[in-house]
């Protein structure tokens, strides 16, 4: 059958076209810096992490205990001021074994793969997960449903950041 569809342009280049100087490039790297206001809820979250604790907020209407904590419940659309500590343990909801860095370069031969996971934190409502890393575990041994516990940085090294927890390790 005759292909009647219309295609025009999209001229492919090869690496050689660029190396040989046939194609001109204008290079620039961007310089943008931001200092985001953390706000009421996340500020408290970070402050508690610095103390080695995980804190959530609880919605008085739908009764969800929510992580990360929020000033408002996005479903009921009412403010939340009920703070509640949760455990630093949880269950692996899903995980990956990642062989590339954030900038898509491949990890080195001696480097261990990154182990991102969604962890449902004990004490928060069912399904309330946060993204974090796993550690002190053989990647082959990780299972969905596995119980894990936070490994904290030493108190003096904590800065009020999500990485005050180094990673979660199997319980």
């Amino acid at each position, binding site marked *: *059958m*005759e*292909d*009647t*569809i*219309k*295609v*025009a*342009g*999209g*001229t*492919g*280049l*090869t690496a050689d076209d660029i190396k040989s100087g046939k*194609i001109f490039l204008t*290079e*620039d790297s*961007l310089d943008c810096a*931001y200092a*985001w206001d*953390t706000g009421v809820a*996340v500020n408290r*979250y*970070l402050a508690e992490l610095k103390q080695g604790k995980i804190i959530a907020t609880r919605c008085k209407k739908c009764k969800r205990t*929510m*992580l*990360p904590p929020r000033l408002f419940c*996005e479903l009921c659309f009412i403010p939340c001021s009920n703070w509640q500590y949760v455990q630093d343990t949880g269950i692996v*909801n*899903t*995980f*990956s*074994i*990642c*062989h*590339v*860095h*954030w*900038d*898509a*370069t491949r990890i080195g031969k001696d480097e261990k793969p*990154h182990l*991102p*996971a*969604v962890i449902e934190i004990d004490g928060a409502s069912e*399904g*309330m*997960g*946060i*993204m*974090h*890393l796993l550690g002190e575990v053989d*990647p082959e041994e990780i299972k*969905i449903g596995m119980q894990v516990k936070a490994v904290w940085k030493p108190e003096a090294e904590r800065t009020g*950041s*999500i*990485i005050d927890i180094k990673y979660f390790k199997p319980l």
Partner: protein
Amino acid sequence: MMRKVAIVGAGMTSFVRRALETPKELSYQATKVTLDSCGLTLDDVDCIAHGTAPDAFDGLHQNGEYMVDGCGGWNKPTMRVYVGGGTGIHAVVHGWHHVASGLFDTCLVVCEEKMSSALPHAQAFFLTIFDSITERPLEPNLLWIFALEMNRYMERYGYTKEDMALVAVKNKQNGLKHPASQFSEKVTVEDVVNSEMMAYPVSRLDVSPVSDGAAAVLLASERVARRLTDKPVWIEGVGWSLDTAYWATRDLYYPRYTDTAARMAYDMAGIREPDKEIHVAEPYDPFDYKALHHLEGLQLSPRGKTVELLRDGHFDIDGNLPMCPSGGLLGVGNPIAAAGTMKVCELFWQLRGEAGQRQVPGNPRRGVAQSWGDLMQVSSVVVVGN
């Protein structure tokens, strides 16, 4: 009574790894070939609805403004819409708003992506899609969320990597027949499963490539459409839905945003039994598992039974519900926003019987295209019919 809106023209550039053309030039080429396909000039176009994904790829703030003249928007009402990866199909929904509202009679929808400008790799810019305070310090990359979702999906239904690879094989096979495709090589299940592991369970061939390209469609009101063509393809339904930004608090095994968006579009199109009433589907397939995940969300396959149907040939070009006859993002290429619009172009050609070697047999009369974006949280759905 809603105002009827038709697609009357479609066109695209070739999808390539690195294009000679600038983003403006790619947009121009897709725009021009689309206007030529229905014998119109820019003077016949009332307004422009355009789309392109993150500005960070281009290193351009207000990228939509920069793109304007390439899209034919010079001295016209021009508005860029943005739902991340879902932009390509959402721009068609956005264009539909322009015409169906009665404000305009014709609207040119143009989507473009040039990912090759970003160094060292377009992927690096996806770090900045994560929450700046609670997630970015973990140095995540885009693959993480897909790997996490794919793992959860496979675990839920007991699917294997081989099962997922079948989609890559099938779509890439279809794509070989697409004149704009970036690829020329057939792959096998073994090739996919044994390709370089990126982020378990995602291997390199499970993923669509990085691409440059553009695609466009022209929308017209009923009055104008009838004058231009005797084969208009009508937009029968549109829907879109955005889930919470707290993505880790959703169960990733099911795309409920696709479910909601599809129901909205089907409701408008008067479709009650989508698996029977839709004859060709272009679900969004940046990763192989995603096509299956989305078919379930689109109510085109029962949850957990999709691999069985896939193995039975249900989704082949000559099956009951041909899926991604274009080749999809896996088979044609993935210049993000342009890839979504390419799917709508494909339905336009399929419903007019103009898809050449890829033509779905049996004169398909109704098709659905769907895209997905943001933090795995948005779907846009377009139902077309003739």
